[in-house]
């Protein structure tokens, strides 16, 4: 956003964090302004100009200062700033930037997270993360990656990368259900915020609405994932009364809007539709597994993702019986992409147990337990394994 003006990401960030500090000092007294982001950017821009004035000896800085002054009249930020923010999102998810840096870069450049926080969230060593971010920003500067919103014909491809990065940030925040780590909890909220911004700027893009709907559906169940004692509660056992009804309503409305849009249904709309089918339980009392299996059919055809195929197998087991599910799962045995994916082993264990293959189920549960990161989920899996009447090795 600010960088869009100046092309100097590092300086823009410094100015923005100054602005955030100013905001934290002012808001408690004066209240949050109507449009906090525009306000922040206005302050950031002023701070940036101040900072540039302090180091005027730098020719480049002087040039940028001149450029900024030329372009910054106080009235123009209402419309123009969000567009720049959008352009910045596209720059962060540019194909010239390594894929695994897209989400971290957005968090730092657009939202002002520090490298150490981002590193923790993505489970990367802080020094390594800092280095990757610096490298990416240098690349943006040196390669002359623009901060423009891509033209209509290039938009769909470029948009996918932006959406994937936002979803990656959300997923990292989502994986901390206890909210023990406030920084990671924020990540899920921030991802939703970014997607809202995107949806307000590209209101006719079905996939943007789809992703926002998907994340809101997931978010509505956030608190229901743990019981009062902090034990893990799987989706099928959650009490719909503990879901956030307003959030679900919003997610449903977004999905309807996405379906009405001209663009064909993409991955995120399909995934949001799956979540919507789960949410139906709050009224209908049951889940339409046949519809879910159909949606996963479409997802498999669209993405060839092994995770979609896994979920399709689970949906088939629910709608057409355990044998059908196991048959579908059999096709995934040995897929290297699933070998260290806990849900694959947990699903396999569950289906084998239902099929009466106690030894096979036990083995699969062991694998799932060994791969799980969250202690509460690990305990849940251990209890499932133990409830098979097996010696819990």
């Amino acid at each position: 956003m600010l960088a869009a003006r100046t092309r100097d990401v590092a300086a823009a960030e410094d100015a923005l964090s100054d602005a955030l500090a100013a905001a934290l000092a002012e808001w408690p007294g004066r209240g949050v302004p109507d449009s906090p982001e525009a306000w922040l950017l206005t302050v950031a821009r002023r701070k940036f100009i101040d900072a540039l004035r302090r180091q005027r000896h730098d020719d480049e800085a002087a040039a940028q200062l001149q450029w900024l002054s030329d372009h910054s009249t106080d009235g123009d930020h209402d419309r123009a700033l969000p567009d720049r923010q959008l352009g910045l999102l596209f720059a962060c998810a540019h194909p010239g930037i390594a894929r695994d840096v897209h989400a971290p870069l957005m968090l730092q450049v657009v939202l002002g997270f520090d490298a150490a926080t981002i590193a923790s969230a993505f489970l990367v060593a802080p020094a390594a993360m800092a280095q990757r971010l610096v490298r990416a920003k240098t690349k943006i500067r040196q390669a002359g990656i623009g901060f423009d919103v891509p033209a209509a014909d290039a938009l769909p491809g470029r948009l996918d990368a932006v959406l994937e990065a936002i979803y990656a940030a959300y997923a990292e925040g989502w994986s901390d259900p206890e909210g023990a780590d406030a920084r990671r909890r924020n990540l899920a909220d921030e991802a939703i915020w970014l997607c809202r911004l995107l949806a307000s700027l590209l209101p006719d893009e079905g996939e943007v609405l789809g992703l926002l709907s998907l994340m809101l559906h997931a978010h509505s169940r956030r608190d229901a994932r743990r019981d009062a004692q902090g034990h893990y509660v799987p989706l099928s056992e959650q009490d719909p009364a503990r879901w956030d009804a307003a959030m679900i309503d919003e997610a449903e409305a977004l999905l309807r809007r996405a379906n009405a849009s001209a663009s064909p249904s993409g991955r995120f709309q399909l995934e949001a539709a799956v979540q919507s089918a789960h949410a139906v339980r709050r009224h209908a009392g049951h889940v339409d597994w046949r519809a879910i299996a159909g949606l996963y059919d479409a997802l498999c055809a669209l993405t060839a993702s092994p995770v979609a195929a896994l979920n399709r197998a689970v949906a088939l087991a629910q709608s057409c019986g355990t044998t059908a599910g196991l048959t579908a799962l059999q096709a995934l045995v040995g897929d290297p992409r699933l070998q260290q994916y806990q849900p694959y082993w947990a699903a396999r264990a569950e289906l084998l147990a239902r099929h009466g293959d106690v030894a096979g189920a036990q083995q699969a549960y062991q694998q799932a337990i060994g791969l799980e990161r969250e202690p509460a989920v690990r305990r849940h899996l251990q209890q499932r394994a133990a409830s098979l009447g097996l010696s819990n090795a």
Partner: protein
Amino acid sequence: MEYMLMIFSDPEGWARLTPAQAAEGMAAYGAYHEALQKAGVLRSSARLRPGSTATTVRLQSGKSQVLDGPFIETREQLGGYFRIEVADLDSALSWAARCPGAAHGVVEVRPVWAMGEP
């Protein structure tokens, strides 16, 4: 690359668990061990008895000195390790995060310095 995942935790914590909880904790380590094996990354591993069983030896002016207790007295002690072979630090960290020790203590990840390596 080879890495040592070293688990530091408070042995008192284990002592406070009920037998059922302790069994569950051990089973979690068993499953983790198995997952490392199945992934083909495990080189070796060991659990260590608490620091109270430690004895320290050093040679001072040609004489060996033997002391009772661990080298460093801290509440959190080295309780065991997993030595793994993975592509890079990121993969090592993702395995460290799955280690039950990351939940009840901390897991320190250090690259192994092979003999002869500069």
